[in-house]
């Protein structure tokens, strides 16, 4: 530790804070705070990209840092906040597992991710290769966030945080993806959020709630008519 340079220490700090933020997302009950955490995650990613660009002198990293700032810190959180206001959903229901249980599962996931990333890190030649484990952990923790939540909003936030994890992984393994791929992914994410926003309205229109377990039953039953929550269908839930 004493031998590493200061900017690498800062990068490591960013990586550690990203991991901490993933846990904060896992423990958070309020959707508004969840979106704010996503914005902070984006900001950290921006700082990490800038640091890496400065360290390596790769010009395209500056560009992708700017893209991160515009898209993940400003545009997407703003879109999500607007959606929350218009849909009037400020609270998530209690997650499927209680918070303490989720944390413990999260810790196991992190251990698994670190083990998983070890061979990849051994192959990579970048200075930031030890952060690959953290990137994999962020991806898997976002999965856990999506699995333990019922509401559509928090699932979208989990999805976006997973994308952040992938971005960070690519950055620490190979100093970023080619520019064209990054633009494509950014566009994809933007379109996904827009489409999902439309989806939210449709789901609420149909079921009067954003609870996704309504979508689990495939057959249309008479109970599905507006404002009557459906009976959970036993045979379908087994899938």
């Amino acid at each position, binding site marked *: 530790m004493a031998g590493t340079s200061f900017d690498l220490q800062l990068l490591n700090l960013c990586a550690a804070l990203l*991991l901490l933020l993933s846990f904060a997302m896992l423990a958070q009950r309020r959707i508004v705070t969840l979106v704010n955490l996503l914005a902070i995650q984006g900001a950290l990613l921006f700082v990490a990209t800038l640091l890496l660009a400065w360290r390596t002198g790769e010009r395209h990293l500056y560009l992708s840092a700017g893209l991160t700032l515009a898209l993940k810190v400003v545009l997407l959180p703003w879109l999500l906040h607007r959606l929350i206001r218009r849909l009037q959903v400020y609270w998530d229901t209690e997650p499927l597992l209680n918070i303490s249980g989720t944390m413990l599962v999260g810790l196991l996931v992190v251990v698994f991710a670190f083990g998983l990333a070890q061979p990849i890190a051994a192959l990579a030649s970048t200075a930031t290769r030890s952060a690959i484990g953290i990137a994999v952990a962020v991806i898997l923790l976002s999965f856990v966030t999506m699995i333990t939540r019922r509401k559509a909003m928090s699932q979208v936030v989990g999805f976006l945080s997973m994308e952040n994890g992938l971005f960070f992984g690519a950055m620490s393994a190979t100093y970023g993806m080619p520019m064209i791929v990054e633009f494509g992914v950014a566009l994809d994410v933007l379109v996904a959020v827009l489409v999902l926003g439309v989806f939210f309205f449709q789901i609420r229109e149909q079921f009067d709630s954003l609870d996704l377990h309504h979508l689990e039953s495939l057959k249309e039953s008479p109970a599905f008519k507006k404002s009557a929550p459906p009976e959970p269908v036993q045979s379908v839930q087994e899938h």
Partner: protein
Amino acid sequence: MKPIEILTQGLELLAALAAAPLFLGWVNQCRAWLQNRRAPSVWLPYRGIRKLFHKDAVIAENASPLFRAAPYIVFGAMLVAAGIIPSMGTRLPFTIAADAIALVGLLATARVFQSLAAMDIGTAFGTLGARREMMVGFLAEPALLMVIFVASIISATTALPAIAENLATQTLGLYPSLAFTAIAFTLILLAENARIPIDNPATHLELTMIHEAMVLEYSARHLALMEWATSLKLFNYACIGFALFLPWGISTGTGGPLSLVASIPVLAAKLTVTGAVLAFIETISAKLRVFRAPEFLAIAFMLAVLGLLVHLLLGA
């Protein structure tokens, strides 16, 4: 044993005994200021202890000898703990016998006896407080051990003085792992010392109380010892925090008696700032429901383990 070692050990024990009620008084004073109340004197805990020592003890008819012995055991355990935490100097002869893990065990011993004594009389409040204390304890102890393990791995030893010395002499750097564990330790300190998010130390009549419910049956010298032990516990936790996260300014290695003298104002400054910060945290946070306490401590445990994992992965 060299004279300087005996000097350090004696000074630390005396300082802990004398300064612990003062530290508690300082925290209470800061809290009163922050809450726009007229602050009580910082010497109030001393006056309380003196007053209690002058009274005659009243003990319930069905109290067993354990009830009488518990205050002395708890106080003794806290005092021994104060002896093995390097608050001023690292050359402590006592620490050969006990490392950081034994320290956690010592604190657990005090907890067990306090809880047993609370259940001894058989009142509803005592049992209730003891159970809650045990619930908080069994969640806080692993978290505290994890915090100590992180510092132990960084400095490759479990002896607290060696950890403090190692961290104090290391080159400055950003340690995310230590930052995480410092936050975890703060949460543990709040929970273990019955401070605000978990328990309110300023109440005697509340259904949610933990610590006060356990000492309700005590009076006079027994109560005085219990109160003194409580303030010693807070002082000890603060000093563990300093040893792990702010080890600068303590007398180490080859320093003479002068460095020991120089460490006294440093410790005083650290305690002053910590007391103010503690009062601030207590003022801005609301008391949690008892059922939320496991969640609070799970966060502390998670942060400590995360610190450990981050250190293992990043080496930072």
